[in-house]
């Protein structure tokens, strides 16, 4: 494994390797788009998991008893935590955002453009007339 950040102290080397395998299977690489097991992305995931380590230990226990395919089919709150954290870290990586063509940037301050639209579409609504009750 490459340059993992230092604040990954709640997991042993073996646990980190297992987690990297799980998330790498969860979201694999796709063409030029890295997978969640990519060292940089996994480093982010690992950092985000530190406060939730107690929950993630349960995932590792589940993995000890099942292969990755079986793990993916389980419905379990601890797994949901891992999925949510993985997804949130993965889908903010610059390379992933560029590959998706959404731009590797925060929304602010540039913002986005949106079509104002044609409000003449409302003519059928106008022509129906009033729909509220008088009192």
């Amino acid at each position: 494994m490459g340059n993992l950040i230092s604040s990954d102290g709640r997991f042993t080397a073996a646990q980190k390797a297992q987690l990297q395998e799980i998330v790498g299977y969860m979201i694999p690489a796709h063409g030029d788009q890295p997978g969640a097991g990519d060292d940089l992305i996994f480093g982010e995931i690992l950092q985000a998991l530190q406060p939730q380590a107690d929950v993630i230990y349960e995932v590792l226990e589940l993995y000890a008893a099942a292969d990755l395919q079986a793990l993916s089919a389980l419905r379990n709150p601890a797994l949901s935590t891992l999925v949510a954290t993985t997804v949130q870290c993965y889908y903010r990586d610059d390379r992933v955002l560029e590959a998706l063509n959404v731009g590797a940037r925060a929304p602010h301050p540039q913002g986005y453009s949106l079509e104002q639209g044609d409000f003449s579409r409302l003519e059928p609504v106008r022509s129906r007339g009033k729909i509220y009750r008088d009192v």
Partner: protein
Amino acid sequence: MALEPVDVVIVGAGPSGAAVAYGLAETRMRIVCLEQGGWMNPLEYPSTGKDWEARALDDMSISPNTRQLKSDYPVNDDHSPISVANFNAVGGSAILYAGHYPRFHPSDFRVQSLDGVADDWPIDYATLEPFYRENEQMLGVSGLAGDPAYPPKTPPLPPVPLGKVGAVLGDGFNRLGWHWWPSDSAVATAPYDGRDRCINLGACLSGCAQGAKATPDITYWPHAIRAGVEVRPHCRVREVAVDDRGMANGVYYFDAEGAEQFQPAEVVIMACNGVGTPRILLNSKSERFPDGLANSSGLMGKNLMFHPYSMIRGIFDEPLDGHHGPSNCIWSQEFYETDSQRGFVRGFTYEINRGMGPAMTALTGMMGGRIPWGEGHHEAFARLHNRVTGMVGICEDLPEEHNTVTLDPELCDAHGIPAPKIDYTLSDNSLRMLDYSVQRASEILTAAGAQEIYHQSPIAQGGWHLMGTARMGRDPARSVVNEWGRSHDVRNLFIVDGSVFVTSAGVNPTCTIQALALYVADAMKRRLANLFD
């Protein structure tokens, strides 16, 4: 330690506290507002970072029990299918609101007379109409005049963009011959009152870094503070005190350093909304008021109304707006007014929500079984990315006394103040209305071209609207405050927030909350010479 007395102490700096402060400021009375949260820094809102979607589920979550910030207090909502959502700051829960800004309708004030359920309000639409207008001018509400679902009104700013979502769904509504209209939104679509226009950040629900979304901290409060009102942040009120005449004489609170203070005041105004206000008043027990303050009716904390929400989503083949844009778009009130043939009374509003960013698309897809782990992940994601949109159905909630806010016997906040405990059940009327809203929404999405539809009903985390727990009325045996917000029991105690709602309507409450607060301020000003008579 007692501080220097003030004329008015307002508890809570959210939408209603800000509006009543502004309304009273011209009297030049000494007015102080105590707020348990702090001032927000828009540059720290999630949309200024690439982790904006993650933060919306963490420190900027709508759930106080998830956030657990210093400004939060725990809420026991284990006995409710709907969880309380709020935010504590100068600006209140509006910091996280979408800014949907509909008025009530005339019929919303006459529910008993028209539909034979609940009660009529002691005021009507015509009474509030000037205050609706004043409030909309202050905020810079955007919209389009001519909505046939309302009496005539003219929003001060142009409507939010239709975008692809508004166009596609508008066409769907048109195919069915059903009502739709651009949403009235507390979102500046042009520069207004020193704020810049919306630039479609798409992160409205976790704070607007642009300042285009009209929240009290950047609308009412700057004006009120310039007029002399003082806001004290990080001050958590524990109880309202009374003197031996039974009049409120101030509030006890914990200041930013955690020290207990007593703020003497001639008038106390509660503005903590439908959970916070009854919580403090129920905690304000005394020999004269053993059941909590202003509670001779026994109705303090009762008749809690949420709006049960349905959420219906469609997956489309064509790319739509994704998260770009204000989340507000168009709405429909086709099913708003009662039609007994539907199998329930009262009705609901559909509010179309544009779409999601990539992380939320992936998360909801994976949790919903539409995006797998492994090989098929990216292909399934691509099918959903920027292609999911839909609506929520905001269903009117009827008042029922067994739906309550009480004080939890064990759970406390960091200052030892009892937490609120929520006991709430969905009525048969609500359940039928929710089902109906899901079915009709599915028809709309199909007519608009959706290839697949899914829903969640009710939205379990959707306790955004907190109403009814200190209701307004003329009869002291059946209400907590009178028709201009003054407590029946304590003549210098006022309530101006959603607690006073008699019925909930089928629309977001903040527009009416703020109009009511302005109306109460006006009523107080007209009666200043004999305010306590």
